[in-house]
């Protein structure tokens, strides 16, 4: 079953007040940089259980959803 995993995120705040995630820092300290963000929308994560602003991010060539729920970020983990 998919799990909800909260992650550390490195952000860029621009002077218009917009934010853009630059990288995800995994619990073991490994940093994955985000190559690009293709979509930002409000969405629910039915598989991980939560709702917030969903960023579609490309990390190492793969699309992953990164959610901003209130003031915390989470990803949907495929692990068991």
């Amino acid at each position, binding site marked *: *079953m*998919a799990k909800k995993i909260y992650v550390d995120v490195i952000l860029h705040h621009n002077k218009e007040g917009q934010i853009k995630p630059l990288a995800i820092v995994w619990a073991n300290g490994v940093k994955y940089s985000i190559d690009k963000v293709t979509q930002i*929308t*409000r*969405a*629910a*994560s*039915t*598989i*991980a*259980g*939560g*709702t917030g602003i969903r960023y579609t991010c490309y990390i190492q060539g793969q699309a992953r959803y990164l959610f901003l729920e*209130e003031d915390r970020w989470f990803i949907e983990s495929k692990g068991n």
Partner: protein
Amino acid sequence: MDRVILHCDLNSFYASVECLHHPEYRNIPMAVGGDVEKRHGIILAKNQLAKKAGVTTGEALWQALQKCPNLVLVKPNFSQYLRFSRMVREIYSEYSDKIESFGIDEVWIDVTESVHLFGTPKELADMIRERVKLELGVTISIGVSFNKVFAKLGSDYKKPDATTEITRANMEQIVWPLPIEDLLYVGRATAQKLHLLGIYTIGDCATIEPAVLKRRLGKWGDYLWRFANGMDNSPVMVQNFEPMVKSIGNSTTCPRDLRNLQDVKIVTYVLAESVAARLKEAHLVAQVISIGVRDINLKGYTRQIKLSQPTHLSDDIAQAAMDLFEKNVDFSTPLRSIGVKTSDLSVMETPIQLDLFTDQKAHQRSLDLENTLDVIRERYGFGSVQRLMMKEDPLLSQFNPKQEHVIFPESYFKG
């Protein structure tokens, strides 16, 4: 031209929010209910599996567990529900400014002016439904009609996650066969009176001579006849319209039964402090104080008293309430829940007639003291400053009515 009104109802709202956040609840019967240990014990919402097992909203937790022994009970998380309620309103507000809440999970939206931008009323309703499902992960059912009463019947007609349109053309097929109990404002007592007149469906009510209804039910007869015929023309209030408050009160079911005045006193002071803080926040003073009592057999009554001067001091309110308890409650049966309510409200600045026998300086000192306490509590939490008596029985005094009770029942007739 007819209005276009949507009534949106979040399906099994509390249970849906919990199921969204806890995927493990989705395939087992689950219900959100009050706190078992503190005995606020009823089912507030349940998921589809619990519904199939016969669990109904409003029944006691033990009843539900008898019907469905493997039912998983979850404590309510009101701040989460309020967050969802706010987010869903943000979506609605993209389609109209006329949004009127009816409780935390229902709203009417008047889209008469904006519907042409989005297609037919049904298309608009489906669009809103899809967005809520996609963006928030919970489902709503929507009723579309030309008045508020039928829109509400529509959202109840088919759920979850469905749209029902009730037009002048199909109202006789859809609305009229429904039982009269489904109509807004027909409760158990009214339904009984209507049954005596041979009225069992909304259609029966619509086709009867209105004078007969009026003779039996007074002005409510008129209302119901108009509701049943789709002639309800009450407007959808503009967002954030605040109706004039008529009373402010709090009540609580206690974690243990109250057996004497000392027990009552502790709870009364907690309630009075919350009521006083809410009065001050609303910039109001009250002149009538009432108490409500329910004993362990669930029998209840209320008593009230009019003060010589309006007040918003917790000391005054608590003292008046205690006088009422002393005079009216004999504790032959222990009490399960009590409440303190203030009414006959006026704005704080309304001039009052002073009298010679009240020490106004002392009154001003208490006022300053309470204001200071409110500031401290605002900053450091409700429990940061307490009356010493609260320490006598922490079990009874440990609740915060002001913060925990944020969801109030609503009246249909506003303003």
